[in-house]
C-alpha cells in the first residue's frame, strides 16, 4: 500500500504472520549534496498522480518479485536533517527477492513519481533539485527524432539514454565548436555547456557555421547557444561568456561529464588537460593549422598532453588562424571528428583515440594514426579512473545477464518470415517464433510469466517491450543487440586496466 503524508513516517507492519523475511529501506535527509551544506529539504508532490503511480509501482514490484507484502510511504512538506523522507518495506518467501524489490522500488520511485524537492542551504539560498537525468521510460524509443540512431545495434535505447543523460562541455565557440555542437545536440546529448568570452567578428563567418551576418558584434557563446536551442529543443544549453582560467576551470568542468577542446591557445589546452586529469574527465582535443590538423582523446590516466609536452610551447611559436589562414572545411572536418569521439565515449561504441592521435592533411587526405604512450611519472598517472556513463534501462538485458536468470522464461522471436531462423541458447524453456506483424500481446503473453522478446538487432524488440510495459505487461524484457549481437564480440568497456597493455 502506498501513502503520502505530511507527518513523520511510521513504518507499516504486515498483518500477515506468515510473512517472515522483511527488508526495509529508509531514505533520510542528508546534510550535504554535491558539496553544498544542506539545512533542510522541502518536498512537494502532485498528490493525485503520485498516489496512483506509487500504488501501481508497488503492484508491479509485488508481481515482478513475487512478494508476499509490500508497502511504501513518502513524506512531503519541510523535513530537517536526519528525518525520513521515504520508507519502503518488502516481504517475500526468500530474502533475495525482498532485497531486489526494495532496490527496484526506490530506483523507480525516484524517476516515476511526480515529487520534487527543494534544498535549503546554509547560506540562506534554496534550489529545486533538478535531476538533469530524464525519467526512465522517457519515450526515447518512440521518439521519431532519434529512431535512426536507436536502430543501430551500437546505440540502441540504452545508448540513446546515455546520450540524453550526458553533460558535455565545449570550450570555445570557434570553428571546431561550431562544427561539433550541432552534431552533439543532434545526437541527443541532454546538456551542453559553451564557454566563450568573445564577440563575433566578420572574419569568423566563413568557418563558424552557426552564425549569420546579422549576428556580428554579439556574444558568440550566446549566439551558439541560441542556434542550438532553436535547432534541437531536446538539448539544454548553458552559455558561459567567460574565458576558462585557473580560477574557474575546476568549478566549470566538474559540472560536466566530457570536455571538448575547441580552443586555439596552448595555455587553455594545457589547463584543460590538467583539470580533466585532476577531476577524472575525458578530454577530446583537436588542433588545426591551415589545411591539416589532428584529433585525440585524452582519458583520465593518460597518455595526456604533458606526456608529449611537459610544458606548453609559447604562444606565438605556431601561427594562429589569423596569421596562417584557414579554410572553413578544416575545423569543420575536425570538429565532426571531435563530436564522433564524444559520442563514442558516451555510448561505449567503437574505440576512442585514447592511445593515438589521428593526423590528417586535407590537401591529399594523408591520414595517420600515430601511437601515443604514457610517460612514467606524468601527472596523469595519478588520475582517478573513469567509467562510461551508466544507464539503467533495466528491461533491456544482455545475453550474458539472461543466462544468469534463475526464473523460467520464454523467448519470443519477433523476426518476420523471410528473416533468419537462427536461434540462440540462453537457457529459455521455450523459443517461439511470432513475427512482429502478427503479434497480438494479449494472446501471446497469456499465462507465460517472464518473456524475453528477441529480434535481429534489438530495435524492434526494444520498441515492443517499451510499448508493452506501458500497457501493464511488466514481465517483458528485450534482448539488447538482438540475435546478431550474440554473434559478435562484445563491446569493450575501457578503463585504465583494459588499456594498460
Amino acid at each position, binding site marked *: 500500500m502506498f501513502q503520502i503524508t505530511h507527518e513523520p513516517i511510521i513504518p507499516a507492519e504486515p498483518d500477515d504472520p506468515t510473512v517472515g523475511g522483511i527488508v526495509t529501506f529508509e*531514505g533520510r535527509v542528508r546534510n550535504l549534496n554535491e558539496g553544498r551544506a544542506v539545512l533542510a529539504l522541502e*518536498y*512537494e*508532490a*502532485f498528490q*493525485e*498522480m*503520485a498516489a*496512483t503511480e506509487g500504488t501501481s509501482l508497488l503492484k508491479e514490484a509485488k508481481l515482478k518479485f513475487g512478494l508476499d507484502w509490500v508497502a511504501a510511504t*513518502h513524506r512531503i512538506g519541510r523535513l530537517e536533517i536526519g528525518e525520513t*523522507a*521515504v520508507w519502503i518495506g518488502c516481504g517475500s518467501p526468500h530474502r533475495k527477492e525482498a532485497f531486489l524489490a526494495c532496490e527496484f522500488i*526506490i530506483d523507480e*520511485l*525516484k*524517476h*516515476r*513519481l*511526480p*515529487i*520534487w*524537492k*527543494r534544498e535549503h542551504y546554509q547560506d540562506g539560498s534554496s534550489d*529545486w*533539485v*533538478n*535531476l*538533469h*537525468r*530524464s*525519467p526512465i521510460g*522517457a*519515450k526515447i524509443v*518512440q521518439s521519431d527524432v532519434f529512431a535512426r540512431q536507436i536502430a543501430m545495434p551500437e546505440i540502441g535505447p540504452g545508448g540513446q539514454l546515455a546520450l*540524453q543523460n550526458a553533460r558535455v562541455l565545449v570550450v570555445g565557440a570557434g570553428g571546431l565548436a561550431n562544427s561539433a555542437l550541432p552534431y552533439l545536440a543532434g545526437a541527443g546529448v*541532454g546538456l551542453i555547456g559553451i564557454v566563450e568570452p568573445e564577440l563575433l567578428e566578420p572574419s569568423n563567418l566563413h568557418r563558424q557555421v552557426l552564425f549569420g551576418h546579422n549576428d556580428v558584434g554579439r556574444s558568440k557563446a550566446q549566439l551558439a547557444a541560441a542556434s542550438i*536551442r532553436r535547432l534541437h*529543443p*531536446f*538539448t*539544454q544549453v548553458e552559455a558561459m561568456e567567460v574565458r576558462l582560467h585557473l580560477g574557474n576551470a575546476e568549478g566549470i568542468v566538474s559540472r560536466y561529464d566530457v570536455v571538448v577542446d575547441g580552443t586555439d591557445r596552448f595555455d587553455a589546452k594545457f589547463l584543460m588537460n590538467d583539470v580533466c586529469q585532476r577531476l577524472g574527465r575525458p578530454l577530446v582535443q583537436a588542433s588545426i593549422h591551415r589545411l591539416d590538423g589532428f584529433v585525440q582523446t585524452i582519458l583520465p590516466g593518460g597518455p595526456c598532453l604533458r606526456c608529449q609536452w611537459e610544458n606548453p610551447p609559447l604562444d606565438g611559436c605556431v601561427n594562429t588562424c589569423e596569421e596562417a589562414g584557414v579554410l572553413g572545411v578544416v575545423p569543420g572536418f575536425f570538429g565532426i571528428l571531435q563530436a564522433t569521439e564524444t559520442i563514442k565515449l558516451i555510448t561505449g561504441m567503437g574505440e576512442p583515440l585514447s592511445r593515438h592521435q589521428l593526423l590528417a592533411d586535407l590537401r591529399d587526405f594523408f591520414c595517420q594514426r600515430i601511437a601515443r604512450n604514457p610517460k612514467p611519472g606524468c601527472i596523469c598517472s595519478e588520475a582517478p579512473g573513469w567509467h562510461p556513463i551508466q544507464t539503467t534501462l533495466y528491461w533491456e538485458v544482455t545475453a550474458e545477464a539472461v543466462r544468469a536468470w534463475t526464473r523460467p522464461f520464454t523467448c519470443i522471436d519477433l523476426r518476420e518470415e523471410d528473416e533468419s531462423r537462427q536461434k540462440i541458447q540462453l537457457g529459455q524453456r521455450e523459443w517461439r517464433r511470432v513475427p512482429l506483424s502478427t503479434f497480438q500481446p494479449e494472446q501471446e503473453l497469456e499465462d507465460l510469466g517472464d518473456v524475453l522478446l528477441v529480434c535481429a538487432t534489438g530495435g524492434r524488440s526494444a520498441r515492443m517491450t517499451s510499448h508493452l510495459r506501458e500497457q501493464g505487461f511488466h514481465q517483458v524484457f528485450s534482448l539488447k543487440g538482438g540475435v546478431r549481437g550474440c554473434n559478435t564480440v562484445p563491446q569493450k568497456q575501457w578503463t585504465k586496466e583494459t588499456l594498460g597493455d
Partner: protein
Amino acid sequence: MTLTVRYFASLRDHRGVSQETLETPPTSVLQLYLSLNEKHQFPLSPAQVRYVVNGAYVDPSETLQSGDEVVFIPPVAGG
C-alpha cells in the same frame, strides 16, 4: 479552446502562479509548452518536461481538447 494548466516546483516558481486558464487555438501539448516557453522563458527544455493531460502521462504529440487539464512535470526528485 479553453485549457487549464498547472505548474509545479521550478516551473511554478518561475511562472509565479500554480495554475492558469488559457485560450488557445487547437494544438498539441508539446506545442503548448513551446509557445508558453517562448513567452515565459521556462528554466526547462521540452525534453526535460513530461506531459500530463487529465491525470495521465501522454506523448508530447498528444492533441489537446477544450476543457483539458494539462500539467507540465519537471524532472522529479522524490526519495
